[in-house]
Structures are given as C-alpha cells and as structure tokens.
C-alpha cells in the first residue's frame, strides 16, 4: 500500500504516531533487541546488586523487631517480593505468548520462553520461604489453603509451560501450544491475588494496598521496596540474558 503524496512510502508509515511506533517496533527485531539488551545488562545487574545489598542492610540492621512475630518476620523481605514477581512474571509471559501467537512475532515468543524459568524460580522461592515462615508463625510447614494451593498451581503452570515448549521441536507450534496454556493459566493470577478475600485462609491478607497507607513501620516498608526493586532488576537482567542466548541459538 503506497502513500500517493509520498511515492515509495507506505500509508501506514504516514499515520500520526507511526514514526514513534516504528522506533519501538524496530526493537522487536532480534538483532536490535540483542544489541540494546547487551547495553542495558551491566546496569541491570548493578541495580539488582546495589538495591539488594541496601535492602538487606535495611531489613536486618534498620528495621525493628516485629512486636508479634519477633525476628521471623524478616522473611517478609524476600517472601513478598518473590510472590509478587511470581504473579507479575506470569502475566507478562502470557502477554508476550499471546502477542507472539496472534501476530506471529518471533521475538515475543522468545520473551515468553525466557521469562518462564525465572517465574518458576520465584514461585518456588515464595512457596519455600512461606513454608519456612509458616512453621514458627502458624506451627505448620504447609496447609492446603486457597492462597498456598493456588500459588502451588502457578508453579505447576510454569513447569507445564516449560515442558510443553521444550517437548515440541517445531518452534512455531511449540510457541502456539505454550501460548494456549499460558492464556488459560492466567485465570489463576486473580485467584491467587484475591484468594485471601474470597475464602477464609490461614494466610494473611495483602501486605500492601494501593488504596491505603502501609500498615508496617516506614523502615520495614523501605526494606521491602528496596528488595522488590532488586528482584525487578534481577528479573530484567536474567530474562534479557536468557533471551539473548535464545536469539543466538535460534539463528543457528
């Protein structure tokens, strides 16, 4: 389709905002992503390490002892960010998987594949640290309540996605089958998030609400935010590094 006023130029390119959109879509090409992510990686690793170190300092040396739980509450500084990342990474995975399926975009499917192992790892960390926190707090390692069971199902969804995409040799078919599973599994995310409101669970309610002031001390909240920033930067770094490896492997 040609623009009559500018022969040789497509009409899509002449639409308002198309130039800015074009700049972004160029990064959807594997070579451009490879170069851009390579430039960002040292900064992301540095942010992850620095915010993690400062977060640990706040978590252990600045945040006070909890009046009810004593020192065991300090597990919150890794358990809650890991649980948040487990849900967020799955939603992003489902988005890229769907994008790759609908638009037949190779890079989107590569992003989804690069996200899955890290999401599974954060889910495992959330489950194990929750168990280690539950023992001194509730007196049990594990209960099949709605929050913990739905988080466990999330781990199975991640493992299922990884197994499915690895089991099919043809990349396009593997990506499409994985996208179907990821989209169906996305229904589990609101179930995890709202499970403590919908059902009577042993697990406590939300740690932080978007509509209310934090219920914890400011220093505790600061440590939690710093550790969350560290997990975010770590996730970007490790997923970009894995996606770069996938780009090179698929080029062969």
């Amino acid at each position, binding site marked *: 389709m040609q623009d009559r006023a500018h022969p040789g130029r497509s009409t899509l390119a002449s639409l308002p905002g198309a130039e800015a959109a074009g700049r972004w879509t160029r990064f959807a090409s594997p070579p451009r992503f490879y170069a851009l992510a390579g430039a960002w990686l040292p900064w992301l690793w540095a942010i992850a390490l620095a915010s993690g170190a400062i977060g640990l300092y706040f978590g252990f040396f600045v945040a006070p002892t909890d009046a009810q739980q004593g020192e065991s509450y300090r597990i919150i500084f890794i358990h809650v960010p890991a649980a948040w990342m487990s849900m967020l990474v799955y939603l992003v995975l489902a988005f890229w998987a769907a994008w790759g399926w609908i638009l037949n975009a190779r890079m989107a499917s590569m992003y989804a594949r690069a996200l899955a192992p890290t999401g599974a790892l954060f889910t495992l960390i959330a489950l194990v640290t929750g168990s280690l926190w539950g023992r001194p707090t509730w007196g049990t390692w594990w209960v099949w309540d709605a929050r913990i069971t739905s988080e466990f199902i999330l781990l199975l969804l991640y493992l299922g996605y990884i197994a499915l995409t690895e089991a099919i040799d043809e990349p396009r078919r593997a990506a499409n089958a994985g996208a179907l599973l990821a989209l169906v599994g996305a229904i589990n995310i609101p179930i995890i998030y709202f499970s403590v409101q919908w059902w009577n669970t042993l697990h406590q309610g939300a740690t932080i609400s978007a509509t209310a002031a934090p219920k914890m001390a400011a220093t505790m909240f600061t440590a939690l935010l710093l550790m969350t920033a560290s997990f975010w930067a770590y996730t970007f770094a490790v997923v970009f*590094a*894995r996606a770069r490896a996938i780009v090179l492997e698929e080029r*062969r």
Partner: protein
Amino acid sequence: MNWPSLEAFLYMGGHGLYVWGSYVLTIGLLAAEAWFVLRRQRRAQQEGAR
C-alpha cells in the same frame, strides 16, 4: 543497630534456622540461575562466532 552481638544476630530470637534458611536458599537459587544463564549466553556467543 538491632543486634548486641554476632551470636544474637545469628540466633534471630530463636528463629535463625527459618530466617537464614530462607535467605541462603533464595540467594543460592538466584545466583545459580544467573550463573547458568550467563554460561548459556557465553556458549551461544562462542558457537555463533565459529
């Protein structure tokens, strides 16, 4: 500063096993994942250069 001594810091009010167990496991798993990913990226770069 919350801790009068190193022993108190490690003991964590009797919850040291749970607290340190959580942190060691988390940092160990994340470091292992980062190491494996960087190794995979390096290998892919080496094979691509051949």
